[in-house]
C-alpha cells in the first residue's frame, strides 16, 4: 500500500512540457515515465503497473480523448488526468463522463496537480486493493468442492431462503449434510457468516460467469 510503486505516466507531444513537468514531479517524489505520443504509450503500457495517466488533450493523430477510449476498451483501470492548452467545455465534459479524474487547463497550479495525482493514486490503490481481495476470494473459492460451490451459489443467488432445510430440499439431501457443508465453506473462505459470503460474492463478482 505504499506510493512507492505507483507511477505517473505523462503523455504530451511538447518536449518542454515533458521535461519540466517530469522534473518538478520527480522533485516532489513522484515516479514519472514520459511518452511523446499516445501511440508510444500504448506500445509500452501493458496494464500491470498502477498509478495515473497525465494526458495532454491536444495532440496530433490520436488525441487524449481517443487514448482514453482506447484504455477503456482494453480494460485498463489506470485513472486519467487531462491537461490541455485550450480548454474546451465540450471536450472536458466528454472526458469527465468517461471517468477522468479531472480536466486541468494549462498552466495549472502545482498544488492542484498534486492533489489530483494523489486522488488518482487513492483510486488506483483502492482498485488495486479490491482486485487483490477479489483475487484472494477467488483462490479460496476455488478450494471448495463442487458440492460446496453449488451450495454457496444457491445461498448467494437465493438469499431470502438460505436455511439448510430449503437448500437440502432443492438439492435432495438432508439438512444435516447441508449444515456440514456450510460450516466447511465458512471455514475454507475464512468468513464468519453467510451474510458476509453474499457480500463478498457480489463484490468479487464470483458467480457472474
Amino acid at each position, binding site marked *: 500500500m505504499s506510493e512507492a510503486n505507483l507511477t505517473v505516466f505523462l503523455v504530451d507531444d511538447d518536449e518542454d512540457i515533458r521535461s519540466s513537468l517530469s*522534473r518538478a514531479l520527480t522533485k516532489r517524489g513522484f515516479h514519472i515515465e514520459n511518452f511523446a505520443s499516445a501511440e508510444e504509450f500504448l506500445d509500452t503500457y501493458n496494464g500491470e503497473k498502477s498509478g495515473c495517466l497525465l494526458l495532454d488533450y491536444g495532440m*496530433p493523430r490520436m488525441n487524449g480523448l481517443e487514448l482514453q477510449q482506447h484504455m477503456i476498451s482494453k480494460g485498463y483501470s489506470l485513472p486519467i488526468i487531462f491537461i490541455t492548452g485550450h480548454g474546451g467545455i465540450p471536450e472536458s465534459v466528454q472526458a469527465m463522463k468517461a471517468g477522468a479524474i479531472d480536466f486541468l487547463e*494549462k*498552466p495549472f497550479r502545482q498544488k492542484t496537480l498534486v492533489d489530483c495525482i494523489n486522488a488518482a493514486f487513492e483510486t488506483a490503490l483502492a482498485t488495486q486493493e479490491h482486485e487483490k481481495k477479489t483475487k484472494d476470494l477467488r483462490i479460496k473459492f476455488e478450494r471448495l468442492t463442487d458440492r460446496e460451490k453449488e451450495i454457496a451459489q444457491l445461498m448467494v443467488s437465493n438469499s431470502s431462503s438460505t436455511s439448510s432445510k430449503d437448500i437440502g430440499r432443492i438439492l435432495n439431501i438432508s439438512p444435516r449434510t447441508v449444515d456440514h457443508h456450510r460450516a466447511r465453506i465458512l471455514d475454507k473462505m475464512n468468513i464468519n457468516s453467510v451474510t458476509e459470503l453474499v457480500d463478498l460474492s457480489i463484490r468479487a463478482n464470483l458467480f457472474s460467469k
Partner: protein
Amino acid sequence: MKLSLGAILAICLAGLQLIAVLSVVLSSYVTSERVLLDHARSLLSDLGLNAIEHSKGFLQPARGTAELAKRLAENEIVASDNPEILEKLLFQNLQISPQFSGLYYGDQTGSFVYVMRSSSIGPYRTKIITNSKGDRVTKFIWRNEDYSVVGTRFDATDTFDPRERPWYKNVLRTRDIIWTDPYIFFSSKKPGITAASPVIKSNGQLDGVIGVDIEIDAISDFLSNLKIGNNGAVIILNRNGDVIAHPNPDLIKIEDADGTLKFANINEILDPIAQAAFGTLPKTDDVTVQTEISSKFKHGGKTYVSTLMPMGQSELPWTIAVYVPEDDFTGGIKDNRTRNIWIAFAIAVITGLLGLKLADRIIKPVRDFAVRAELASKGEVDVSKDLPKTYPELEDANDTLVHEIVQRKISEREYGQTFDLASRGMAEISPNTGRFIRVNSQLADILGYSADEILGMRFSDILHPDDSDTYAFFQDAVHEDYEYNQEKRYLHKDGSTIWLRVNAILIRDEHGKPLHAVATVDDVTAQKVSEVKINGLSRDLSHFARVNMMGEMAAGLAHELNQPLTAITQNADAALSTLQEQTTSDPELTQILTELDQQAHRGADIIRALRGFVRKDEGSKAAFDFSELVEQALHLVQSEASVHGISIVFNAENIPNVFGNRIQIAQVLVNLIRNSIEAIASGNTALKQIDVIAKEIDNFVEVWVEDTGAGVNPDINLFTQFETSKSDGMGLGLSFSRSIVEANGGQLWYDVNSAEKSRFCFTLASAVVNEEVLSNV
C-alpha cells in the same frame, strides 16, 4: 353562267352517254330501215322474176307450135287432105300439154281441124271442117283419153272459116309466129292467149296456119299460190292495162255491155290496192315498162312498196306488178326496233343514273375539300389535320391556299395560347391611359385581383409608393419603341410589396398607330427575398469571419503560449522543490521562484480572458436546411469561381435538416470552397470543377467538397494552426473550420484515400435525432 364541276360531270357522264346511246340506236334505226326496204324491193324483184320465169315456162310449150308447123310442112299434112292424121297429131300434142286448151290447123282451102278439151260427152272433142271445092262438111267427134270415139255429130249450119280469123290473117301477113293479146275464151270462159305459126311449104308457099290456144288461168292460180308477205300480191298486166293474171282469178273477168266477157282493166278491177299501186302509171294505151321500177304508195293508211318489171320478151308485152305492205317485211323489225329503243332508253337511264352516281363519287372529294376549306376558314376545323382523301391537284391547291390560313390560325392561336396559358403574367395595356385591356389569369394571381377587377384598373394603380416613377419610365420606353425591362416594386391587393419584372413592347397597326403595349410580368419577389437573404448571409459571414478569426487566433495563441507558460510554472516548481531540499535555503530565491510561478499564471489568465471575450459571439444553434445554405453560399463564391473558369456542382439527395450554427457552417463551406478555388487556380489542370456532395450517413449528413486541384502536400499538417501551403495564408482556415465543425458536433477531415480529387469532408448532426443531445452539451 358557271357550271359547277358536279353539273359538268353529270352532263358528261350521264347526258352525253344518253346522246351517244340514242344516236347509235337512231342510226341503226335509219340504216336498218333502208336495208329493210332494199331487201323488200329485192324480194319483190325476185318475186317478179319468179312470176316471169313461171309465165315463160308456162307459155314455153306454145313455142312448140313452130316445131309442129314445121313437121306438118315436112309431111305435107294439110287438113283438107288427111284430116284423120292431122287430128291424131294434134290430139297427141294436146294430150301432153295440159295448159293447152286446144290445137287447130286451118289451110288456105278453108279446111279446119280443131282438137280441144271438152267437158261434155267425152274429154276431147274434135271439129273437122272439110271444104274441098265448095263441098263443106263440119263434123264433131268426141273421144276418150285412148282416142276411142265417144260420139259423133255433124253440123251443117256451121259457117266457120279459118281464113277469116284474125290469127290466120296475121300469120299470113307476117309469115311468122304470132301471139295474140290475151282474151277470154269463148268456149271455156277462161282467159288465154293464142299462138299461131305459119306452115310453109318447101316452095315457100304458105300452106296453112297452126294455132294453139293456151289457157292462162293457171298463171293466176300460180300467182295466188305465191306467198308475198302476208298481204302482198303479184299481178300481170297486158300492155293495154288489162289484168291478165291475178291471185284472185275471178276479178280479172268482167262482162262487157254486149254480154261478152273481157279482161278487167287495171282501172276497173275490184282490187283497190292494185288500182292504187298502178294508179301512178301514165294513162296511155301502152302501160308497158321498159325497166324495173320500184315505188312506194299509201293506201288505207298503210304504206306499200311495189315493183313493176317488164316480161322481157317482145312477143309478150306484159308487165309484172308486185306490191306488198311495207309492214309485212318491216313490221317485226319495227316492233323489235321499238323494243330496242326502249331497252336502249332504259340502259341510257340506268347508265345515266350510274353516271350521276359516279359523278357524285368523283365530285365527293372535291366537295369534302370545299366543305373542309370552308370550315377551315371559319376555324371550325384544324387545317393541320390530314387532308381527306382527294386528288393531287387539290392537295397542291390545299398546300398553297390553306397555307395562309394555317399560318394565320397558328399564329392567332399561339398568341392566344401564349397569352392565356403562359406561366408568366401577361397583359395588354393601353399606351395612352395605362388601362389594362387584356390580362391573363397568371397576372391576376400575381397581383391578387380577379381578372375582371384588373380590367377596370390602370397600370398606375398597382405602383409601389417607393417606385412611383415606374409608370412614367414605362410610358417613355414604350413610346420611344424601346423594350421596357425593369424589376420594380408593386403593390399586391393585400397591400404587401411584390417585386415584378415587367417586360413590355409596343404593338402598332399597319399604319404605325400604337395599338397597345404587350407586357410580360414575372413575380421575382421570392428571388429578391433570396437575394436579400444571401446578402445578409454574406454580411453575417464577413463579420463572423472577422470575429472568429480573432477568436481562433486567440485560441491558437492561448495554446501556443500556455505550453511555455506551463513549462515555466513547472520549472519554477522544480526549482522551489530543489531549494527546499537544501539546508541553507535562500528565502528571497524562494520568493522569486514563487512570483515567477504567479506571473506565469497571470499571463495565462490574461490569455484566457482574451479568448473568452472573442468567443462570446458564437451565435445559437438551430435546425436548418443545409441544401438551401449551400445554394446561398455558392452565390457568394460564384464570381470568384467564374473568374477562374471553375464550375461548381452541388449534389444532394434527400438529406434531412441539420442542427448547428448556420453562419458558422456557412463559413466552413465558404472556406473549403475557396480553398478549392485557390487550389485549382494555382494549378494547371484541364478540368476545373468543384463538386459539393451531401448525403445522409447514419445520423449525420456527410459533406464532401472535392476539387480537381493539385492536392495537398503530405508534409503539411493541414489542421495545425499557422501551418499552410499557401504563400499568403496564415494557416488558420482549416484548423478554424475544424474547430467550428467540432463545436457543432461534427468532424472535419481530409480524405487521403480520394485518388483523383482532393476531398475535404465534414459531418453535421442530423436535426431530428441530435437536437436534444447537442443542446445539452
